[in-house]
């Protein structure tokens, strides 16, 4: 006997209830809390920020007095020396921070991969700056680098060298902040590199030894190519984080002296919350987003040349 199609077909409610029992359905249920959070806390604010950037919300007035002004906030940016300077400072900061961080963490990972006494405790100590609070870190470094009798400058002066102004110098403030941030972020990058180095097949090194390869040749021709996907990941994430740097700049110099360490994230914050230039700050944030996106796409496209999967 043929069954009636209508009576066999489960109701919508029953089908919805069944979703969770299917593999794809279960995955959806797992993902949905994240998606809701992502939508509320990321997507909607981003869309809101785009809308705000097209308005004249550049003074402390009620929302009902705001009107659309198109791309004026974007064009204004190209005539604003402070904002352009802030973008320039962020690029400069990235130039100090990213290569410094990648090179130092790689070298440290190479060292930590060796067998030596107290290796476990050394690895633990290296991790400590990473878990330290940025405010505490800033206070400690401010004291250490105090140009007026700070311990670092006292030591330098003993060697007869004119000590730098560090965080108080127009030319030294930004590199000093980059150095402090490298010191703090070093642990994470080192651990990731260490894991990647430990994952390199030992047979490759043995084969290279038999062929008489030097230590440098092994590093250049085996280690670096094999860990290149990890290096690629770390370069992308550190570039993004370098452009987002705000807290340490705020705590260490607050953008000074003058505007010599005023990076774009700090500028956006000041424009929005000190000067109530919400639209202009949003436009700057959108430009920053576009710059980071373009840099990431360029890296993604360029990875074929040096990343080996």
């Amino acid at each position: 006997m043929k069954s009636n199609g209508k009576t066999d077909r489960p109701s919508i409610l029953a089908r919805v209830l069944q979703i969770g029992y299917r593999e794809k359905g279960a995955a959806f249920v797992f993902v949905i809390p994240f998606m809701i959070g992502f939508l509320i806390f990321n997507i909607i604010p981003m869309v809101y920020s785009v809308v705000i950037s097209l308005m004249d919300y550049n003074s402390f007035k009620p929302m009902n007095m705001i009107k659309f002004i198109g791309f004026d906030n974007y064009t204004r940016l190209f005539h604003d020396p402070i904002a352009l300077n802030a973008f320039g400072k962020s690029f400069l900061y990235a130039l100090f921070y990213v290569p410094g961080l990648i090179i130092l963490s790689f070298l440290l990972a190479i060292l930590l991969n060796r067998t030596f006494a107290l290796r476990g405790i050394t690895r633990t100590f290296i991790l400590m700056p990473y878990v330290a609070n940025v405010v505490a870190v800033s206070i400690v470094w401010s004291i250490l680098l105090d140009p007026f009798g700070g311990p670092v400058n006292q030591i330098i002066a003993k060697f007869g060298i004119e000590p730098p102004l560090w965080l108080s110098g127009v030319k030294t403030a930004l590199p000093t902040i980059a150095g402090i941030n490298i010191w703090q972020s070093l642990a994470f990058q080192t651990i990731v590199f260490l894991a990647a180095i430990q994952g390199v097949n030992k047979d490759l090194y043995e084969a290279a030894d038999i062929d008489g390869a030097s230590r440098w040749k092994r590093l250049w021709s085996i280690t670096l190519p094999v860990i290149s996907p990890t290096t690629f990941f770390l370069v992308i994430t550190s570039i993004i984080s370098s452009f987002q740097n705000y807290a340490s700049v705020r705590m260490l110099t607050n953008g000074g002296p003058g505007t010599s360490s005023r990076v774009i994230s700090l500028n956006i914050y000041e424009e929005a919350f000190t000067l109530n230039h919400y639209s202009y700050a949003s436009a700057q944030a959108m430009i920053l987003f576009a710059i980071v996106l373009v840099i990431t796409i360029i890296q993604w496209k360029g990875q074929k040349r040096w990343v080996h999967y």
Partner: protein
Amino acid sequence: MGLKKKRQAFVVMLVSMMLMTACGNTASTQSDQKEAPDKGTEKERVVTVYEDAKRAESDEVKKELADFTKETGIKVELNIVPGDGVEVYKKIDIDMISGEKTDVIRLSNPILIDKYGSNGWLYPLDELMKKENYDSAKVFGKYLPKFADNKTYVLPDQAGKWAVYYNKKIFDDAGVAYPSGDWTWDDYIATAKKLTKADKGIYGSYMLDYDNYMYMLARQYDVNGYKEDGTSNYDDPAFKKALQFFGDLGNVEKIQPSWLEFKSKKLSWDGFMSGNYGMHFIGTWYTNQFKDKKTYPRDWKVGITQIPVPADGKGNNNFGIVAGYGVNKNAAHPEEAYTYIKWMAENSYKYGGNLPARVDLNDDDIKQLFKKTSDELSGEITVEDLDKALISNDLGFVDEKITGAGSTEYSNIILQESELYLVGQKSLDDTVASIKKRADQAIKDAGGK
């Protein structure tokens, strides 16, 4: 049902329950929030007030609020904003835009009074005052903040002046006589030099990193920050002279920490309380720090004298600011809020030790205030000292801040550019030219000329 399916079903149920629980909680919270005002209006009168974390903890504020409630029967609920100083207004700004209903906002300087009052965030008080025939002009006179639409949005609670506080121990140790007032900046520098003992970490003078220090001399000459056409007046030679004067105190005269040292060592607004400085040039709001021996235990006594003036006799002015209270235009309890700000404007000087903004007080009222301050300081500063430093002298009074179109931006520009001069990275002429150029643009962007 297989074990795998049972496990899946369990996980799905768990996630659903978590989501429902979260939604359920939100709903009940909203419901509670909706009920709260009804309960409040039925049972008791309430006023909600923004307060910064530091002030909210102070004994004076606690006593002030308790006395207000005792007198009016209105319960005060504080909306405490983390931080202190002008930092708290960053959150309050966002709250205003979001339609927050907290009733009362304390506005601690004229820039903030202008910003909140002129941009339509405050409730006009005229109708409420008219209802009870309250003549605010008679009570507060010249200190009553004025707005373009001629409405009253703010009642002032203090009209602070500036003074020089000095550490008597440092004077005694150096064998220098205490300043007796009626003195010039040259006298101030000469005195501070005698007190400075660099090897012992003692400076004769201490000043902060506020914008108005950069142009205090110009304000003493009563030179305005804006020209008559509304553009920046920073190209007036008085501003150049004022910035050079302030920079020289640290860099040339070396009587106080240079800007570089102040910033590098992250010296703070209450640094004078450390006991390492001979004199501190600051507003009278600072008197409270000397009363607070729990936070600032000290083995030295404090004195007060009037501010120095330029030697040419053309700038014989003290300066200061008016601070006050406004009612949020979205206030949930506007009438209670009005009662609160009126009470605070009339009475808060009795608690904090600030000079009142009331012009209806007589000499005895002021003497009584000074007597209270003197008693709280165990006689370290006498009634006569306070009177001579702040009232009975030949000094005029000018506004401490530059207020007008784009004044927040103006203030930030002055600080940013002046810093480059103070640390030796920019010439004086280039600095004032940059300030003038950027301030003109900021004024234009803010809708000025």
